[in-house]
């Protein structure tokens, strides 16, 4: 993971989406107008978050199976970056919602669900910090992480679809058409998802290395 090529790809992809996201042709849609471009920046936060949380759960499971402390550090740092992405996703979503749905918070099912999801992960950090024994901290943290993920996925992807939601692709709200992304939008959107995720992994990697340094210093003391 210490290679540089994937970091360069991540930077290049985000670089490309910053330019293309603002300059490329965008569909002229009612209500959304020019803000359709926010999709290339707001949605990748959530995609990146879910991708990194998935990786985190895999590392938590590997930690429980092997007992290797390394995997636990991977898991916690991935969650930390995911929380950053989630907060940015909520914040950007609120700005976008203010100008398209009329209010920053309209208690849209997906908004509420993602806020609950964030709270679940805040609790994960709190839970870990409240346990002093490192072994116990890692084990309970890993188990909690699996349960948190198992709650988050239905919250984000299943429950909002079962009711009326303002978010595209959820329920059948007549005031806001759910648009299917076309090829031209995908050309910017998918690179944005990959690029931002890679940047997130880069940040995570730096923090993992700092965490290793810290544990090494702690050992010597």
């Amino acid at each position: 993971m210490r290679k540089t090529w994937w970091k360069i790809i991540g930077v290049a992809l985000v670089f490309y989406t910053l330019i293309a996201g603002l300059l490329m042709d965008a569909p002229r849609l009612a209500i959304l107008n020019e803000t359709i471009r926010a999709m290339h920046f707001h949605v990748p936060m959530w995609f990146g978050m879910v991708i990194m949380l998935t990786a985190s759960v895999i590392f938590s499971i590997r930690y429980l199976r092997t007992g290797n402390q390394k995997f636990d550090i991977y898991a916690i740092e991935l969650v930390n970056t995911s929380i950053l992405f989630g907060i940015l996703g909520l914040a950007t979503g609120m700005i976008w919602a203010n100008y398209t749905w009329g209010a920053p918070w309209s208690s849209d099912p997906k908004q509420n669900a993602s806020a609950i999801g964030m709270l679940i992960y805040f609790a994960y950090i709190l839970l870990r910090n409240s346990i002093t024994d490192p072994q116990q901290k890692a084990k309970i943290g890993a188990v909690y992480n699996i349960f948190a993920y198992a709650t988050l996925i239905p919250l984000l992807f299943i429950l909002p679809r079962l009711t009326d939601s303002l978010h595209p692709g959820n329920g059948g709200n007549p005031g806001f058409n759910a648009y299917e992304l076309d090829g031209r939008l995908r050309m910017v959107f998918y690179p944005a998802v990959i690029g931002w995720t890679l940047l997130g992994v880069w940040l995570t990697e730096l923090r993992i290395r700092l965490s290793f340094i810290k544990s090494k210093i702690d050992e010597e003391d």
Partner: protein
Amino acid sequence: MKKIKYFLVLTLLTMSLGLYAQKTEIVEEDYENDRIEMADTMRSEGKIYVLVAIIVTLFVGFTIYAVMTEQKVKKIEKSLKERE
């Protein structure tokens, strides 16, 4: 056991199909209409490039700083290894 697993996956997949919501497709007309107001003046005046330049400059700055931070971490790792 394996059969049950496959059966479960298949049932869950079929059930999830029902969750797909109806979506409106974006058509060529959406790109060409004049009804919807967009920031056309700003684009025709070329001011949009100012925005792009500002955002790109910020991103480049943060990227350089991130690379420098990584170099610092590398240095500490090295000095820790040498101490051992």
